[in-house]
C-alpha cells in the first residue's frame, strides 16, 4: 500500500539510531526584539557560546500600540511594528542564562522592548552527520 511505500522511503533516508531512545531535554527560546538590537544580542549569544540561531523579520504589536502618521493630509495608523524574531534551541541547563542575558541586552525600559517565549523541543538532528539530541545543537 502507499503508506507502506512511504514508510519504506522514510527508512532509506533515516539513519537507524533515530529509533533509539535519546535523552533530549532542549528548549526553544524565541525572542521578539527591536530590530536595532539584533547585533548586540547576536554578540551576547556569541559570548555565551550559543552556536546557531534563526532570525526572521516580523511585525506585530503587544501593548505597544501603533503610530499615527499622516499622508497627503489624511491620518492613518501603523498597527504592526517591525520586530525581529530570534529562535535559538538550547539545552535545558542553558535556558536560564540565555533568557537573562538576552533580556538584559534587549531592555531599553521603553514600551516595545519585546518578549521571550520558551517552548519544549522534542528532538533535533544535524542533517550532515545524523547526530541527534543535544549533540545536534
Amino acid at each position: 500500500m502507499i503508506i507502506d511505500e512511504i514508510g519504506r522511503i522514510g527508512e532509506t533516508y533515516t539513519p537507524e539510531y533515530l529509533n533509539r531512545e535519546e535523552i533530549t531535554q532542549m528548549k526553544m527560546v524565541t525572542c521578539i526584539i527591536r530590530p536595532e538590537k539584533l547585533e548586540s544580542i547576536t554578540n551576547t549569544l556569541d559570548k555565551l557560546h550559543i552556536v546557531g540561531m534563526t532570525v526572521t523579520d516580523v511585525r506585530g504589536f503587544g501593548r505597544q500600540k501603533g503610530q499615527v502618521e499622516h499622508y497627503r493630509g489624511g491620518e492613518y495608523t501603523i498597527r504592526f511594528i517591525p520586530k525581529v524574531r530570534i529562535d535559538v534551541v538550547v539545552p535545558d541547563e542553558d535556558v536560564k542564562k540565555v533568557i537573562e542575558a538576552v533580556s538584559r541586552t534587549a531592555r531599553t525600559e521603553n514600551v516595545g522592548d519585546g518578549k521571550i517565549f520558551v517552548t519544549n523541543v522534542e528532538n533535533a538532528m544535524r542533517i550532515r552527520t545524523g547526530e541527534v539530541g543535544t549533540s545536534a545543537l
Partner: protein
Amino acid sequence: MKSLKMKTFLILAILGVSALMGFATLAKAEGTALTDQDLTSISAPASTDEIAAKGDPGADFTGNVRDVTVSDSKKGLTLADLANQAGQNKIAINFVWTLICGFMVMFMQPGFALVETGLIRAKNANHTMMMNFMVYSLGLFAYYVCGFAIQMGGVAPVANLGGLYPLNGEHVVNFLGKPWALFGTKGFFLHGTSYDVGVMVMFLFQMVFMDTTTTIVTGSCAERWKYSAFCVSTIGLGAIIYPLFGNWAWGCGWLSQLGVNFGLGHGYCDFAGSGVVHAVGGLTALACAMIIGPRIGKFNRDGSPNAIPGHDLVLVLLGCFILAFGWFGFNPGSTLGASGNGALRIGSIAVNTMLAGCTASFSALLYMWIRYGKPDASMTVNGLLAGLVAITAPSGFVNPIGASVIGWVAGFLVCLSVEFFDRVPKIDDPVGAISVHGINGIWGVIAVGLFADGRSNYGGSWNGVNGSVKGLFYGDPGQLVAQLIGVATLVGIIFTMSFLWNWLVDLIVGQRTSAKAELAGLDIPEMGALCYPDFQLKAQDYAGSSSQTSKAESLSKS
C-alpha cells in the same frame, strides 16, 4: 501660365542683375558696395500661393528671403535688416543651445537623487529622495534672491549671449596696486535692468550648475542629516558660498584675472566647473560630514570601518547614466553657444567628456577587480562620475588623448580616495561624494594647468588674455600656478567658509538627527512616511565587533 511667365521673367531678371554686378566687380579694381536697391530684386523661390497649392515635402521652398525680418515694410528689405538678422540668428542659436543644455543639466538632479538613494538603506530612502528633490527649489530660490547677482552681477560683456550689458555691476577693491573683483552687484531678484532676455538665459544656465553643487552635499550627509538643517545649509550654499567662488572664477572676479593682473597664464581657467561646481560641492560635503560625524555602525571602537550596503544598485547604475547624459549639457553647454567665438568646439568638448568618463570607469573597475577580486558596481559608478568631474574643467581646452589620460587618473584617484577617507581621517561618506567631487574636482582644476593644449580658440582670448589656454605640458607653467592658486582658494577659503557656516547651523538648528531616529530610519521620524510601506524592511546586521555595539545601545537608550 501667368505665374510661370512671371517666374521666368524674375529668374532672368536676377540672372541679369547678377551678371551686371559680376561685370561691375570685374571692371573696377575696387568693387562698389551693395546697396539696399540691390536687394529689391531678390525674390523667394516660390510664392505663397504656389506652396499653398502643392506643399513643400522636400524643403525646396521653405526658408527664404521672405522670412528675413523687415524692420520697415514701407522701405522693404534693407542691408541693415540682413545684418541684424544674421546677428540675431547667431544669438538665437546660442540661446537655444545654452537653454537646452541647461535643461539637460537640470535633468542631472534625478541622476544624483537615484545614485544617492540607491547607495543608502531603504529605511532612509524617503528622506534622501526628498533632500535631493528640495535642493532644486531651495537652491533656485536662494540663487534668484541674491546668488545670481553675487556671482554674475558684473559679468558683462558676454558676446555669445548678446552682451548681457545690464550685468555691469561688480565690487572691486584695490590691493597691492591691482584691482581685485570680489562680487557682483546687479541682478537681485532678476529685477529692473536684469529683466532682459539674455540675462534670463544666463540665469537658468548658471542656476542649474549651482544646483549640482548643492545636491553633492546631500550625498555625504545622508542617513543622519536633519531635514531642517539641510534646508538652512543649502540656502547658505546657494545664496552666498557658491556664488562667491563662482564670481571669482566665472563672473570676471579676481581668480579669472590672475592672467591679466599677474601674468599667470590666462588666470584661473575652469571651463565648466570642476572647481566652481564640483570641488566647492565636494569640500562642503567634507565640511558637513566632519561636523555631523559618521553613521552609527559605520566605525568600530578600534576605528575599523564597516560596509553598509545600499539598498538598490539598479538605481545607482541608472542614476549614473542619467548623470552621464546630463553631462553632455554640462560641458558642451559651457560654451554658452554654438555659433561664434570658437563655439563649434562643442563636438570636441562632448567627445572629451565621453572619453574621460569611459577611461575612468575602466581604471576604477580594474583597480577594484584586481585589488578585491570582484568588479564593484558602486565603485565603477564612482569611477565614471569621477572621470566626468575631472574632465569638467579641462573639457574645452584639451585633446582626446589628454581627456583619456585625465579620466584614467581620475578612476584610480577616486578608489584611493574612498579608501583613504574611510581609513585615515575616518570620515563617513555613504556615496563617495567627497572623493568623486571634491578630490577629482581639484584634480580637474590641476589638469587644466597640465593638459590644456593651446589649440582651442574662443574668440582669440580667454579671461582677457590673448591667445589660447595652454598647460604645463604645452609650454605655459604660469597656467599651472594660476590653477594651483584656485585650488588653494578652494581649500583655504571656500572649505573654511562652508565649515564655519555649517558649524553655525549646527549651533543654531542642530545638524544631526537623534540616535533613536537614525536607528529607526529617518523616513518615519523626519518625513512621517516610509518610502516602501509595502515591504518588510530587514533589520540591519553589520559585521562589526561587539565593542561598537555598546555605543549603539547606549545611543538607542536616549
